[in-house]
């Protein structure tokens, strides 16, 4: 890896010491009101030089090559501005910008699709963005509560799927890679997302890249990548606090009632952003206790996050983020009986789990020239859990440490990315023993402009995966893409590539007996993989209407699933090849005055086993959602309606009833000074359905949220 990096660096443009540079500074404000805009993306076109505005809307771009340059300004919810400016040699030039609000909160710049900043229309993959406002207006404590609003994304229990990739596979790893600021946030044992390490109040935006992305990100990026980007510690001074109080209604059917009263949820969260000299600091923390809507449904959640960011605008940039979370929660596997769906069997009553997580990530970036930088990202993620079950007290400590290094060289013609990573997973736990895993990878991607409106990209990644019980397995994941922009209003994209997932520690080494199940290890597990292709694009026939559509086809092989052995135990095995294909549509529209916005999505999915043509379990063949928001003065009213056709097949209890899913949420909020009060109604029609067998969804929930920000 080291020698490849040297080659890349030698091929880069000259270092900035030999260049004559200047500084561009100014403020970004909202047109009409003059209000400062924080967290605006500001970049010098054709270079990797960029920054963000702070809470006062101020920005400073250092080391900008002298001469006539184009500078772009973008914020979600505002029209993008590109201005020309003459940068003086060794001097400063002021460029103040007013951005026009647009009623459509369209994504602007994304960083996940190519591991470097690019306009969303230029991305070689289908990318959706959830902004901080979407998270905040829904009072979601964690990201998993709102991800299913993204077209093509499903959440079943805590398992995330994109375009049907995951379904539900208890105990097995998910087929979507989740990153926190570009660093994997998956547990080292099960390979599943630890959602409690991603508190919503610290999130600036979430980028969802759909389709196989192992060519850049390696294992788990089969269905796609979700990158959670935290708020800038320089976006201060700012303070934010939120109190939530919620309760559940009685279920619609009398037979389902199981306790007097609805149970309570109460939570307090806060975030503070301050400058420490040239440094930016963000401190965030929160506490939530909920009784839950069902027996064993209680949860106690405590979390904190500290983020430090080095000085902005210089040649070197760094940040350091530490996240801590403790969650104690009851354990619910399945209901006691059809007419007691919110109660567990006597054997599970009182079972609970404690988990502690510590995640430390860092990023250091050195600007090597006007078009190149080198970035190092070390990270450490430790999870400790223990089960307090009637029949099981297993515990484990899992630590994953890794370093990713990559260099990006950009010019007006395109962008070259070269990187590598190395890491290790150490495990010490009663269900696993003490296996170790080592990972290493090299990746290369080149994006070039082959014509005035045509961009081509190609790349690949070689991953090596070794465990203490197995020889090294290697997987090569290539990807090619063509992006055509025939007019400023539309983009067409063709993508093909491979994704894979190395088997998790749990799948290979688990030996556990609980709840009537005995799971045995299988060190001989092979990686599962997918070859996928997509044709898609976006089109804005009018300024306030945006259509996005994709056709996709994926072929999965060696899919890992838990299966019953001939002797009655459960074992994870490579059992299935499957074809998942479908179409995804998304429409966003708004009225010119901005008082009405709407977003509608639809997914058609065919997911079948190639061997026996049976549908895959837990996939809904049709899903749709609609969001409508109305604004007037200090008031906001909004609804989310989610629909899903009945799943085609159930995995464990195939004869259980399968029903469509409907969920109607609504919220009304009003700003009062620096406070915003919001009343949320979740599942307003009190509709009950099972996403997985014998786990009934929550009855109607009322939640009051009081936010204070400064």
């Amino acid at each position: 890896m080291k020698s490849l990096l040297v080659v890349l660096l030698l091929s880069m443009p000259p270092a900035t010491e030999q260049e004559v540079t200047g500084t561009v500074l100014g403020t970004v404000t909202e047109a009409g009101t003059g209000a400062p805009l924080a967290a605006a993306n500001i970049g010098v076109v054709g270079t990797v030089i960029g920054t963000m505005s702070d809470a006062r809307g101020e920005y400073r771009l250092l080391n900008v090559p002298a001469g006539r340059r184009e500078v772009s300004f973008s914020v979600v919810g505002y029209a993008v501005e590109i201005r020309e400016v003459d940068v003086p040699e060794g001097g400063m030039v002021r460029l103040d910008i007013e951005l026009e609000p647009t009623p459509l909160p369209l994504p602007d710049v994304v960083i996940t699709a190519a591991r470097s900043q690019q306009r969303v229309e230029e991305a070689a993959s289908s990318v959706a963005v959830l902004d901080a406002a979407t998270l905040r207006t829904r009072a979601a404590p964690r990201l998993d509560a709102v991800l299913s609003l993204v077209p093509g994304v499903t959440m079943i229990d805590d398992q995330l799927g994109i375009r049907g990739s995951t379904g539900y596979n208890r105990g097995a790893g998910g087929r979507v890679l989740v990153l926190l600021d570009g660093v994997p946030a998956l547990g080292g044992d099960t390979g599943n997302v630890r959602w409690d390490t991603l508190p919503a109040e610290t999130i600036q935006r979430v980028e969802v890249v759909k389709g196989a992305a192992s060519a850049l990100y390696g294992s788990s990026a089969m269905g796609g990548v979700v990158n959670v980007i935290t708020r800038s510690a320089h976006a201060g001074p700012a303070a934010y606090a939120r109190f939530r109080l919620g309760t559940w209604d009685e279920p619609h059917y009398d037979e389902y009632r199981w306790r007097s009263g609805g149970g309570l949820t109460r939570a307090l969260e806060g975030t503070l952003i301050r400058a420490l000299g040239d440094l930016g600091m963000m401190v965030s923390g929160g506490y939530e206790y909920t009784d839950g809507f069902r027996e064993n449904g209680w949860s106690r959640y405590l979390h904190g996050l500290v983020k430090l960011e080095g000085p902005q605008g210089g040649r070197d940039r760094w940040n350091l983020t530490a996240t801590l979370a403790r969650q104690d929660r009851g354990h619910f596997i399945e209901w006691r009986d059809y007419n007691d769906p919110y109660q567990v069997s006597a054997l599970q009553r009182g079972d609970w789990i404690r988990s502690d997580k510590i995640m430390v990530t860092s990023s250091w970036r050195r600007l090597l020239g006007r078009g190149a930088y080198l970035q190092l990202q070390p990270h450490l993620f430790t999870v400790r859990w223990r089960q307090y079950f009637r029949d099981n007290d297993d515990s484990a400590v899992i630590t994953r440490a890794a370093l990713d290094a990559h260099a990006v060289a950009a010019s007006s013609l395109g962008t070259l990315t070269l990187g590598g990573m190395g890491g290790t997973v150490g495990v010490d736990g009663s269900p696993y023993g003490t296996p170790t895993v080592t990972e290493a990878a090299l990746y290369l991607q080149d994006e070039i402009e082959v014509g005035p409106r045509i961009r081509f990209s190609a790349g690949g990644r070689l991953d090596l995966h070794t465990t203490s019980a197995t020889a090294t397995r290697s997987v090569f994941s290539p990807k090619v893409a063509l992006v055509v922009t025939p007019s400023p209003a539309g983009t067409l994209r063709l993508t093909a590539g491979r994704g894979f997932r190395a088997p998790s520690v749990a799948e290979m080494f688990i030996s556990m007996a609980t709840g009537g199940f005995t799971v045995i290890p299988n060190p001989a597990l092979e990686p599962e993989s997918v070859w996928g292709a997509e044709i898609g694009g976006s089109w804005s026939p009018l300024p306030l209407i945006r259509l996005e559509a994709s056709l996709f086809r994926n072929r999965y092989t060696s899919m890992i699933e838990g299966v019953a052995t001939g002797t009655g135990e459960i074992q994870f095995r490579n059992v299935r090849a499957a074809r998942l294909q479908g179409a995804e549509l998304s429409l966003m529209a708004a009225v010119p005055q901005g008082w009405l916005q709407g977003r509608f999505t639809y997914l058609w999915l065919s997911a079948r086993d190639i061997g026996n043509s049976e549908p895959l379990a837990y996939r809904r063949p049709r899903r749709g959602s609609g969001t409508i928001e109305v604004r007037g003065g200090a008031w906001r009213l909004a609804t989310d309606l989610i629909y899903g056709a009945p799943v085609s097949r159930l995995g464990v209890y195939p004869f259980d009833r399968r029903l469509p899913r409907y969920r109607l949420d609504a919220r009304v909020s009003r700003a009062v000074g620096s406070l915003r009060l919001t009343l949320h109604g979740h599942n307003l029609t009190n509709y009950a359905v099972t996403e997985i067998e014998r786990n009934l969804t929550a009855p109607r929930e009322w939640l009051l949220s009081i936010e204070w920000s400064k």
Partner: protein
Amino acid sequence: MFSWSRCLPLLILFLLAGGCGYGLAPVGPNTTGLTGQVRLVGAWPEDTGVVAVALFRAEPVSNQSEFPVVFTEAPAFGDSSFTYTWTLQPGSYGYLVVAWMREGNYLFDLASWIQIGYYPDPADPSEPGPVLITPGILRHLDLRADFSLVPPPSGGTRRGGRE
């Protein structure tokens, strides 16, 4: 300024959702399935792990040949009866059993099951009988289970489901 006429699009979504019903309904008399009461006779053995009623497609012919289609556990140690209710696909099921498992054994380890009651074949009560499930009918079958059939701890366990 806020105007209620602007809320018309929201009302459309509300009306759409309002017509969707309430989803999964409890098992009632018109449900295709099986319900009943299990009466437990005798003293609960001290080393009881699980007592459950379970339905199989066919009587297991080996220790681990088949998992139950559905099962329900007794709610608590010492109960003298418990009820079960299942929705099922119409058809014939070969084995409805009340099983006892010693503490430390697991529900799906069929080798550890002790049969303490079953639905008998009307023609030959010494054999388990088929349970026919008809569309649109919640069939009612009560069962009797006898803890005296549990062998003493030193006697080992009976294997293979039914003795």
